[in-house]
């Protein structure tokens, strides 16, 4: 009995770990709008009533243990303009508590500040952070091919100015939107700050306090931290080589921040009520691209084929298991090959792969839910994971149809379910824009509608979808590559360009 409980507990832990891989630290940028690469950090500080650019070093750390994670930022900065005397030192630790709702496929992340220390010296003024209130919560929808998240937060920072000369209060509110998948991650933060400063200016004589000054300013910050992986073809420089070229996977990471400020016009410490300082400052930092060379496709029968590029891209990603020198692009794609290719191309974790790493354990033989995919089969782990994640459901309750030809309706349904977008379709009773809408089976209709909306598919010359048409291996390869492009490019464009360039 104890053994069974232990096995059960282990299985639950394993499933939790597999369903919810560790989120990258990049998903939790700080709320000051700073950008950084491997070498340098930049941030604009507005506490003095003037935008002052600070640059320097930052170290970040992200640690995750079960349902807890901590993100720590440590930075030491100086004004970029050397004529301004100053420095900024900051240490902030955020604690993230994950509430993993495996039954819903969602995670709630509550974020708190557990420690802080911040001192800013600007010319003769010293700002010390006395209190930092922070409340943030994020919902993460864990879909098979990608996580999508959205968060809201509110914060308040209390600074003292030269210990007793006054206070600066910064009210910060904002929201976060992002996604994370193997091919890209983007976190976009829209931050609104209201700065309220009340202080007494130093008097003319020593020990004498001068005039009281107060002002308010606002700063809107759009901040994006984005990573994407692209596949690029590189020709071999030499002719006398066994291959003419191959693909590489390039990881590019960029941070961008745009500050739009509205500050008082301060001259010699006095605020001019009739004028305001308004402006925009942009910061951008790129990390050095990371390059990984991939295996070289060597097929005899794909040269000159209209789908050659897509086939070779997928082969480079090792998604096709057979070692044949013939791809046979115009032969039908079967359901098993397509599901396996999708799982591999999107790096969707499959249970069997992790089990091997954790060592062997004597467990009772599993019973496959499908007669045609026995649990002893190499493909079983892909089918099982795809079934658990809701990507596939089989052609009937006990028949997966591994060797059956893949139809267009099936392929589209599998891809849209992997994205978790099928719920975005209208309520039933609608028709799609395809001329052969009546031929689209009910189980595929939502997916076909969504796939059309997100430009995964388009109609043929007569604007038909042809749901029952069997897909060739070439057609399926092109569709899969388009799906990867969606994960890599389309999501980035939507979460980065469209939020920042259209809305703000």
């Amino acid at each position, binding site marked *: 009995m104890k053994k069974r409980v232990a096995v059960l507990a282990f299985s639950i832990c394993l499933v939790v770990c597999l369903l919810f891989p560790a989120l990258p630290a990049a998903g939790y940028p700080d709320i000051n709008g700073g950008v950084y690469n491997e070498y340098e950090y930049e941030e604009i500080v507005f506490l003095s009533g003037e935008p002052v650019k600070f640059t320097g070093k930052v170290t970040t750390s992200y640690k995750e243990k079960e349902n807890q994670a901590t993100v720590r930022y440590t930075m030491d900065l100086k004004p970029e303009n050397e004529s301004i005397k100053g420095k900024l030192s900051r240490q902030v630790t955020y604690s993230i508590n994950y509430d993993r709702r495996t039954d819903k496929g969602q995670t709630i992340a509550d974020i708190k500040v557990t420690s802080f220390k911040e001192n800013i010296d600007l010319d003769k003024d010293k700002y010390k952070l006395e209190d930092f209130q922070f409340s943030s919560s994020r919902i993460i929808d864990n879909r098979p091919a990608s996580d999508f998240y959205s968060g809201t937060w509110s914060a308040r920072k209390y600074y003292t100015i030269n210990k007793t000369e006054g206070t600066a209060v910064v009210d910060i509110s904002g929201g976060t939107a992002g996604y994370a998948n193997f091919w890209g991650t983007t976190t976009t933060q829209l931050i609104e700050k209201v700065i309220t400063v009340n202080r007494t200016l130093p008097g003319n004589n020593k020990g004498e306090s001068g005039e009281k000054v107060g002002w308010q300013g606002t700063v809107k910050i759009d901040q994006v931290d984005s990573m994407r992986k692209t596949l690029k073809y590189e020709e071999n420089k030499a002719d006398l080589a066994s291959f003419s070229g191959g693909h590489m996977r390039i990881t590019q990471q960029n941070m961008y*921040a745009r500050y739009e400020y509205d500050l008082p016009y301060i001259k010699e410490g006095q605020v001019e009520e009739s004028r305001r300082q308004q402006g925009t400052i942009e910061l951008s930092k790129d990390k050095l691209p990371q390059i990984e060379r991939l295996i070289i496709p060597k097929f005899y029968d794909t040269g000159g084929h209209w789908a050659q590029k897509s086939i070779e891209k997928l082969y480079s990603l090792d998604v096709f298991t057979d070692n044949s020198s013939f791809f046979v692009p115009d032969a039908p794609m079967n359901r098993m090959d397509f599901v396996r290719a999708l799982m591999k191309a999107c790096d969707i974790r499959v249970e069997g792969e992790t089990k091997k790493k954790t060592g062997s354990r004597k467990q009772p033989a599993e019973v496959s839910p499908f007669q045609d995919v026995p649990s002893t089969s190499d493909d079983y782990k892909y089918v099982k994971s795809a079934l658990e994640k809701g990507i596939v459901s089989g052609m009937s*309750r006990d028949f997966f149809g591994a060797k059956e030809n893949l139809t267009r309706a099936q392929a589209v349904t599998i891809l849209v379910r992997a994205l978790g977008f099928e719920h975005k379709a*209208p309520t039933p009773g609608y028709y799609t824009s395809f001329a052969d809408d009546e031929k689209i089976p*009910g189980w595929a209709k939502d997916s076909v509608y969504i796939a059309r909306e997100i430009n995964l598919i388009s109609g043929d010359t007569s604007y038909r979808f042809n749901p029952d048409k069997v897909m060739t291996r070439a057609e399926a390869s092109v569709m899969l590559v388009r799906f990867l492009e969606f994960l890599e490019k389309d999501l980035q464009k939507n979460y*980065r360009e469209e939020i920042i360039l259209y*809305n703000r």
Partner: protein
Amino acid sequence: MKQKLGWRYRLAVIMVILIFLAWPAGAGQAAHPFVQGYVEGYLKEITLPPAGGEGEAAITVETYGGEIYRLKLSLQAVLAIDQRPAKPADFKPGMEVYARIVNRQATYVEGYSTMVASYLPPGGRVQRGVIIDIEGENLIIKDYAGERRNYYISPATVIMRQGKLITPGLLYPGDRVKLYFDELYSDVVGRMEVEGNSVLVSGLYRGKLASVDTSAENLVLREVYIWRNGRWQSHAGIMQIPYVPEIVPFAGGQKLAENRMPYYRGRDVYIITKNVLGRERAVNVIFKNQYESVFNDKIADINWYADKLELGDKNNFTLHEGSVVIKDGRLQDKMILGSGDDVLIIADGRGLSRLANIIYVYNQSLNNTKNGQYYILAGRLDQVTEYRLWLKDYFVLGGNQWESFRGSRELFFDHDTAFYDGENRILLSADQFIAGDYAVDEESERVKKEGLKDWYAYLYVDGERVVAALLQPKMDSLLVQRVTTGTVHKVVQDELAGWTVEMRDGADFSPARGQWMPRTAFLRVNLEKALLIKEDKLITPEELKTGDRLYMVRDDFFGKVIVVK
């Protein structure tokens, strides 16, 4: 006895016949679900054995008539709710269901749950694309797959650029937009988001390709020239510039793969850039194939079938897939070109065989599209009453030159109208304008006594509504005024002249030639007495930014009405 039996026998036969006649054909048999092949009613229960366990999967349905049937679920049974695939747990007792029966087993079970069919939340359908044209309520966009789509905008359509509400008149062909629809099948746009300044072309460069880093998506050029004030000007010895991921380079009118660019090292290349996310990035790359020549004239004719363009000077050009058209600071679809457009063409070729690589359209108007109702008027203020004014013997800036009209023109204003007293350099509210002596009864004693006269005004109007007005006691000579366009290079507060803008890439409209004439030098224009308008609001010179595109009426050095486009 025989007779009695015969009578009874006959009666029995008649009764049997009558019963058969009265009984609906096959009614008894058809009422049974196993016979009719389906059952419908309310779900009582759906049961499935545990995985690998024993027991049979079954469904219990109570028909609308009250009969209860328990059906075995076939192994191949398909479960659905409202046509969507469903799990047994999704079915709830009391739900209306339909079950198809084959061989006494349910092979398809569908439940009904959705109340509102075909419902989509407001804004639930999104379309992205680039505006090709706007005329009336008709909006034509080209989606990113290259397909033209026709939609409609209504007065209720919310249009936002960079988070600010704008009117349809402020849209341009070439604007990239996101359209949100509130209903599934509607072509009326509910909400439109328009890309901000990142849509504008920020630079046109020519240089020799030094190197390409496809992994970092960077180009390095040497001997770099920038197109400034109608000619190539030396810009930098070396310039590194990132390019956008979706770049499609062209050479000799043909598309190139990105990884073929390194083969063009040393070749002259034209780069068109935009400011995207804090960095200037190349969005178009065109390699020079043969020899460059630059032409400046009106388009005489375009043959879209042959993709040929002829200028007024009879020079012919071939348009290709990579030909770049720039108008209103934006990259445009080739189809916006038309006969009569004043263009500059940077061509590639030799002899009479030339490819039009870059086509820069000078034509600008106060109105961005045919939808626009913006005009500039000038004239004497004849009468001002509450929210109404009359101009007498007025002028209208039409076709980029002043046209005079006799008579009176009634216009309307409101509390959002901006009035600028150019004489005293003060802003007035609508009430101050009404109360002021800007339009007087010259026959009245007080007016005669105080020597008052009607003032003159430049009015920037949207239809019949005055958006902004510049008031001055005397009328300028409109004959010496000219319409000029250009891009803000810098704005300075000159110690002597006051706020002054320096513009680059300008063009003046020549009424004599009816043509836009490019300027070959920077142009300085004073803003102190000018009406400065941006997005229907009066702005201060401090709010002008480098890169802003201006359309202005100026009197030599002095700006009169300046509209930020």
